[in-house]
């Protein structure tokens, strides 16, 4: 499906609320409410016209005002792709796991928890795996983080 068809299909068929982000990229981009996340993931994975079975990437981001979790998904069968994200407040960021939809999301979510400090609800194994086991210097990918040997380089722009 083309970008316009994908956008129309998802906004009309999905029961929850999705916001479309206008951009010039070839993929449609949506904002999904955090409470609709699992329902949305289940819908795009199972819908026969979408079949978005391949979770290409799952990344956390700190925009400064809020946290975001970005999902880039693709279809093995139909080859089209969509991107969507959820937005979370800075205090007490929590979102639901999508492991029951894409089991491969496990480590991606663990990484978001470890490096951003966002809690993943219902995740079976939220333990450290990239940083040291006794790491106690906070969450390095948050903006404004400073560690003992981290020196921000000057912006040469």
């Amino acid at each position, binding site marked *: 499906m083309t970008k316009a068809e994908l956008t129309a299909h998802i906004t009309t068929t999905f029961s929850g609320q999705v916001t479309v982000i206008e951009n010039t990229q070839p993929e449609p981009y949506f904002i999904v409410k955090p409470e609709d996340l699992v329902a949305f993931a289940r819908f795009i994975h199972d819908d026969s016209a979408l079949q978005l079975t391949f*979770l290409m990437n799952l990344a956390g981001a700190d925009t400064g005002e809020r946290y975001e979790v970005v999902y880039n998904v693709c279809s093995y069968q139909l080859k089209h792709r969509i991107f969507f994200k959820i937005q979370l407040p800075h205090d007490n960021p929590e979102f639901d796991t999508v492991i029951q939809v894409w089991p491969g999301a496990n480590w991606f979510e663990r990484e978001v928890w470890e490096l951003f400090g966002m809690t993943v609800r219902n995740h079976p194994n939220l333990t450290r795996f990239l940083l040291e086991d006794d790491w106690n210097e906070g969450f390095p990918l948050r903006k404004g983080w400073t560690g003992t040997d981290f020196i921000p380089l000057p912006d040469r722009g």
Partner: protein
Amino acid sequence: MAEELRTEDMTMNMGPQHPSTHGVCRLVLTLDGEVIKDCQPVIGFLHRSIEKMCENRTYAQCIPLMDRFEYCTSMSCNWAFCLAAEKLSDIKVPERGEYLRVIMGELNRIASHLIFVGVTPMDCGALTPFLYTFRERERIMDLFEMTCGQRLTYNYIRIGGVAKDIPPEFIPKCREFLDIFEEKIRDYEKLLVDNPIWIARNKGVGIITPQLVYDYCISGPSARASGVNFDIRKNDPYSIYDRFDFDIPLGTGGDCYDRFNVRVNEMRQSARIVAQALDHLPDGEIRVKVPLKFKPNPGEVYSRRENSRGEMGVYLVSDGSTKPFRIRARGGSFSHLQAVPHIVKGLKIADLVAIFASMDIIMPEIDR
């Protein structure tokens, strides 16, 4: 005689410094005799915080860091990062630059698969193919060295094109390599593909079903060995891949044997692409001028490339300044290692070594 002997599960560490784990990976195995009941990968030994370091550097300074993301195919990592930056700022790479990228990218894929074809039999106990494949890999390394001066971390593909033009002796040397290469591939096949010991170790071992491919987001040759026809060069063509005539080798069984054969056949297809690119290599500019203080347009982008290990993707957020706001680099192995515990359950330790090798898992792109 007691009727029932008391048995007990044994927990064993495989690694971190095990020679078959290709980097530093620890597998905690729960064993019943020699049968694996559970396998828990422990990663993070090679974590260098590449993503955090990129946020602190200009775009040009990020490219050498991406080399270290996955050092067997550095060209691909440079390329994926540059693709993302170019997508954000609508930079059009000149024709000659695109052709040089394809030539280098495919030669790098061959070099990476040559490591695989040499190292996988070595993990299974056959040392000879390693010596053969590294002889051919040396020729590719020489080609890279004469072009960009480096043999492992190239920093060659830049935003807007490539760093340097190829020297005049590159094309004859490269053609010479392509001419002998088909015969060399047949040598590797003679050593292994019909070898009864090789078949006994690999055929029917470590089957990845298409369902497991979908569940665990397996991509690249490991997915295609299971019959999942998915190659980004065909399905979502980037650069100029739509101009070349090449096939996608597919397997049927999804076992270690098929994964090996798919990669061997992929080397043939990559050699075909390089030959076509050399035939049609145009003259002209190799790079568009990009300012030193390169500032892409603000926005988010996800670029993907077919790497030798699966999908290599870069999620890039720019806020319009000289430094990337956020980078998440995705390598195929990150997903593949998650699937290993599900493949090895009920198999023996020796099979785990063969499976780990056949999926071509490399640790730096997992730990980043």
